C-alpha cells in the first residue's frame, strides 16, 4: 500500500542511525555476544519502519573487526564504523554480505530485458542464492544474505527456499525482510527467528527529527503523520518539496469539498480519480495514497469523537477535525471507515475504480 521506501536509501544511508527498535537491537547484539546466532531471521513490519536499517546494523555488528567494548546497561548494536568491514558494508561492497532483492535479481538476469516486469523474487533467484550460499565467507566470519522483498516470493520460490532456510551451510546467515509476515509461508516463519518490528513511539521519531535539525513544530507534525514509521518521517523531512505533507493537505481539502458537495460533484470527482487510476504508475499510486490518507483522517475523527485527540495522526488539523466531528455521528464515522477499507481492498482486487469509488462517494460518504 505504501510505496516501498525501504530500498530508497537516497535520503540517508541504511547504515546511519537506527531509530527505535532498541529491543530488537539489544536482542540481536546479545545473541552475537553469546554466540547464539540463528541461521535465519525474518524482520517484518510495515514499509518505512526500519527493517533494512536494522538488518544492515546487525550485519555491521556481526562483521565489525574492532567492535567497541561492551558498556553495561547500554542497549543496541556495537560496531566501529571505521574498520574496513564497516566501511565496505556502508558502501555496499563487502564481499560476504549480499543484499538480494528485485534489483539484484534484475542484475543477475542481466540482458534478458524482462527485468522491469518482474515484481516477484523468482525460483531461479532462490536457486542462485542456494548456490552462492554454499561458498564459505572470504573475509568475515559470516556469509550473510539479506533478502529484501521476501514477501514477493511466490509459493514456488518460497518452497524452494525451505530446505536451505532450515539447514543452511555452516557460517551462513539469511535475513528475510518482509513488509508483512502474512505473505510468508508459515513453514518459512517457523524456520526463522522472527522480529516483528513494532511502531516506533511518536516521541522517538520526533526526537530523531529534531536531532536532524527539524523545527519543533514540523517535527511534531511529521512524527504524528508517520504513525510510527521513521522511514516515512525521514523521507518527508529530507524531501524539500514536502510532497507527503502536501499530499495530506490535498487529500483533506478534497475530502472537505466532497463532504459539502452534491452527487454531481461527487461523481465528477470519482471520474477524475478513475482517470488517474487508469493512467497507471504514479498517478494510480496517488489514488491509493489519497484513500490511505482519508482512512487516517476518519480514524482521527473517531479518536476526536471519543475525546482521544492526543493520539490523532493529523495533529496540526485538530480544529478542522473538531468542526467535522460536531456534525458527524459515530455510526457515520464507523461506516466510512469500513467502506474506505472495503474500497481499498476492492481496488486491490481489480474492481473497477468507477464502481468502487462511485459507490463510496454516492452511497456512503455522508453529506455535511
Amino acid at each position, binding site marked *: 500500500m505504501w510505496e516501498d521506501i525501504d530500498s530508497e536509501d537516497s535520503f540517508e544511508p541504511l547504515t546511519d542511525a537506527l531509530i527505535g527498535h532498541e529491543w530488537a537491537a539489544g536482542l540481536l547484539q546479545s545473541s552475537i555476544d553469546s554466540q547464539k546466532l540463528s541461521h535465519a531471521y525474518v524482520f517484518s513490519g510495515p514499509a518505512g519502519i526500519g527493517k533494512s536499517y536494522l538488518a544492515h546494523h546487525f550485519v555491521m555488528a556481526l562483521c565489525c573487526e574492532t567492535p567497541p567494548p561492551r558498556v553495561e546497561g547500554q542497549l543496541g548494536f556495537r560496531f566501529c564504523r571505521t574498520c574496513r568491514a564497516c566501511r565496505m558494508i556502508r558502501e555496499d561492497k563487502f564481499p560476504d554480505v549480499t543484499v538480494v532483492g528485485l534489483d539484484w535479481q534484475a542484475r543477475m538476469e542481466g540482458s534478458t530485458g524482462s527485468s522491469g516486469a518482474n515484481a516477484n523474487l523468482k525460483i531461479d533467484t532462490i536457486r542462485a542464492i542456494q548456490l552462492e550460499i554454499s561458498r564459505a565467507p572470504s573475509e568475515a566470519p559470516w556469509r550473510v544474505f539479506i533478502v529484501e522483498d521476501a514477501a514477493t516470493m511466490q509459493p514456488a520460490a518460497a518452497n524452494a527456499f525451505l530446505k536451505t532456510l532450515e539447514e543452511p551451510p555452516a557460517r551462513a546467515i539469511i535475513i528475510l525482510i518482509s513488509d508483512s509476515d502474512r505473505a510468508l509461508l508459515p513453514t518459512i*516463519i*517457523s524456520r526463522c527467528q522472527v522480529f516483528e518490528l513494532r511502531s516506533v513511539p511518536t516521541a522517538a521519531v520526533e526526537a530523531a527529527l529534531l536531532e536532524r535539525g527539524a523545527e519543533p513544530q514540523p517535527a511534531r507534525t511529521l512524527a504524528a503523520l508517520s504513525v510510527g514509521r521513521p522511514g516515512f518521517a525521514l523521507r518527508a523531512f529530507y524531501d524539500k518539496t514536502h510532497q507527503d505533507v502536501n499530499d495530506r493537505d490535498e487529500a483533506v481539502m478534497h475530502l472537505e469539498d466532497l463532504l459539502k458537495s452534491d452527487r454531481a460533484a461527487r461523481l465528477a470527482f470519482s471520474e477524475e480519480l478513475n482517470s488517474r487510476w487508469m493512467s497507471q504508475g504514479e498517478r494510480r499510486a496517488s489514488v491509493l495514497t489519497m484513500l490511505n490518507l482519508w482512512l487516517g483522517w476518519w480514524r482521527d475523527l473517531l479518536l476526536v469523537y471519543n475525546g482521544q485527540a492526543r493520539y490523532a495522526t493529523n495533529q496540526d488539523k485538530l480544529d478542522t477535525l473538531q468542526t467535522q466531528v460536531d456534525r458527524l455521528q*459515530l455510526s457515520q464515522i464507523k461506516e466510512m471507515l469500513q467502506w474506505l477499507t472495503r474500497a481499498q481492498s476492492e481496488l486491490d482486487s481489480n474492481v473497477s475504480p468507477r464502481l468502487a469509488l462511485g459507490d463510496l462517494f454516492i452511497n456512503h460518504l455522508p453529506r455535511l
Partner: protein
Amino acid sequence: MTTDSNGAFPGLDWGLPIEPPASTSTRPNGNRSQTLYRKWRSQTFNELVGQEAITRTLRNAIASGRTSHAYLFCGPRGTGKTSTGRLLAKAVNCLDPDPKVRPCDKCEACRSIAEARALDLIEIDAASNRGIDEVRELRDKINFQPSYLKKKVYIIDEVHMMTEAAFNALLKTLEEPPPHALFILATTDPQDIPATVVSRCQRFDFQRIGLEQIVKRLEFICGEEKIPAQVEALETVARQATGSLRDALSLLDQLIVYSGGNITLDAVRLMLGVMNIEAVSDFSEALIAGDMPGGLEQINRLVQAGTDLKRFNRDLVEHLRALMLLKANPSGKELLDMTTEAMERVQVQSKKVELAQVVYFLKIFSGVDYNLKVSPYGQLPLEMALMEALLPPAVTQVQAAPVVQAAQPQAPRQMQNVTPPARPAAPPPVASWSPVAAAPSRPAPAREAAPEAERPQAQSVQPATEAPVEEEAGLSDSELVELVFELVQQSWPRVVKSVDGQSKMIAALLKEARPTACRGSNVMLSFDYEFHYKQFKDNVRNRTMIEDHFAKIIGQKVIIKCLFDKEQAEGGKDSGSSSGSGSASSGGAVPDDEKTRKALELFNARLLD
C-alpha cells in the same frame, strides 16, 4: 549431478544433490551453536514428541519387518515429519540385532545417518528440484544397490511442490521400486499431491503437538542445556507455538539470548510483547462496559508503549474464549491451563456479561488478526473492531428476559428521544407506537409501555453502567436519524432471513408482515391477521428480536411498532401527527381469550429459551 540447461543463471548447477542434512549430533564447531531445533532433533523414537500413534505403528512395522516401500508423512509445520523420516531411515538400516529397539542410535549405520554422512540416505528438496528431469535422474540412479547401508532411503521433502509431470514420472517407480529402496515423502500440504501418488504410499497424518508435551520437551531441553527456566514461562512459549515444536524451540532460542540464560515469565512477556493479563482483561472490561473512549485510549497507549498488537489481539481472543467457555459451562474443565490470576479476572467479568455478547465479541475480534497484518495504520483494525463491537449492541437483548418494572424509570427518556415534540413524558407510560388513535380501554397497560422499555430492559440485566455509556457512544444520536423508508423496505427480506437463522417460528410469523411506514427510527409493521399481529404486539421479546436483527442489518437502532391491517385504514391519517398516545389494541385487537394468549406466550417462551 545434472547440469542446468535452462536456468537464468549460467553456470548454475543444482542437479539432484544429496543435500546432506546438517550434522545433528556433532557439537558446534566454529563460533555458532546450532539452533535448538536442529540440535535436538529426535534421534530415537522415544524422543519423538507427540506422535504416539505414528511411532507405535512404525515401531511395530520395524519389529515385524513389514515396512512398506513408500510412506507419506503429512501434517503442519514443526510436528516431526522430517525427523520421523530420518528415524525411519535409521530404523530400517540399524544393525542392532533386536528389531524392537531399532533405531539404536549407536551402531555405525545410525551414527552415519545422524551425522549426515550416509551416502544411502538421499534427502531431496523437492521444492527446488521439482521438475521431471530430476525425477528421471532419480529413476536412473535408484536401480543401483546401496553402497553401504542395507537400504537406500529417499526422503523427498516438501513434496507438494513437485510439478504434475514430475509426480507422474515418479508413479511407476513409487509403485514398484527395487527391493532395496524406500521412499519417504514429507509435506505440509497433502491436498496438493495427486491421489495416484497418495494411494501408492502409506499415509501418516501428523497431529499438532499438545501443549503439555511441548512444555515437557522444552523442560527436558532446558535441563540438558543447563538453563534454568520457569514452567509458566515455558508454557507461554508453548502456547505461542500453536502445536509446532520447531516454533517453540525457535522461540526458546531467542528467549535464551534475550533473558541471558535465565528464563522467567517476565522475560517471555517482554520479548513476546505479551502484555500482562491486566492489559487484556482491562480492555475486555472496557468492552463489556461499552466504554469506547476508554478502549480507544487503551489501544493507543499500548501502541505508544510498543506492544505487539497482533499478540494483544490473540491474547484478547483467548481471554474472551475463556469467558465464553466459562459462561457456557461454569463447571467445565476446559480452562484448567489458565493461571489462577487470569482465572479470577475471567470469573469476575463473567458475572457482568451475557454469553451471546461474548460470542459476538469473539466473532468480531477473531477476524482482526488478518487485518492487523495488512493495515497501513497499525492499530486501526483493532479500533474498528472495538467500534463494531460496541456500536450496534445487538444480540444481547435476545437473551435478556424482559423485566418490565425495572425498565419503567428509563422509559420516559427514551420516549423523548424518539418523538421529541408533542408529548410530555407522562409518568403513566401511555405511549403506544401504533399510529392508531384513541381507544383508551387498554387491557394490559404494562405491556403497552413495553416498546419504549425494551432497550432498558435488556440493559437492566447487565451492569448498570452500560446504559449511560451507550448513550455516549452515540446511540441516542443515531436514534434521531430519520430512517429512509426505501432502505427499510429493501432490507426487510434480509431481516426476515436473519431472524430465520435464530427462530424459524418468528420468521414464519414475519412472512405475514411488511413494513409500511417509518418515522424517525420507528418502523411500522403491518400485519394481515390478528393472530400474527398479537404475537408481536403483545410480546416484547419477539419485537426485540426483530429490532436486533434490523439493527444488525441496517446498522441503526430501530423501534418496531405493530399495526393490524384492519386498523391501518383508520389509523393511517393519524400516523403523520405524533399524537400516537393511545392504545393500539382497539376493539378486535384486544385478546379476548386470556388463556390462549398466555398459552401462546408460554409456547413462545419455551421455543425461545
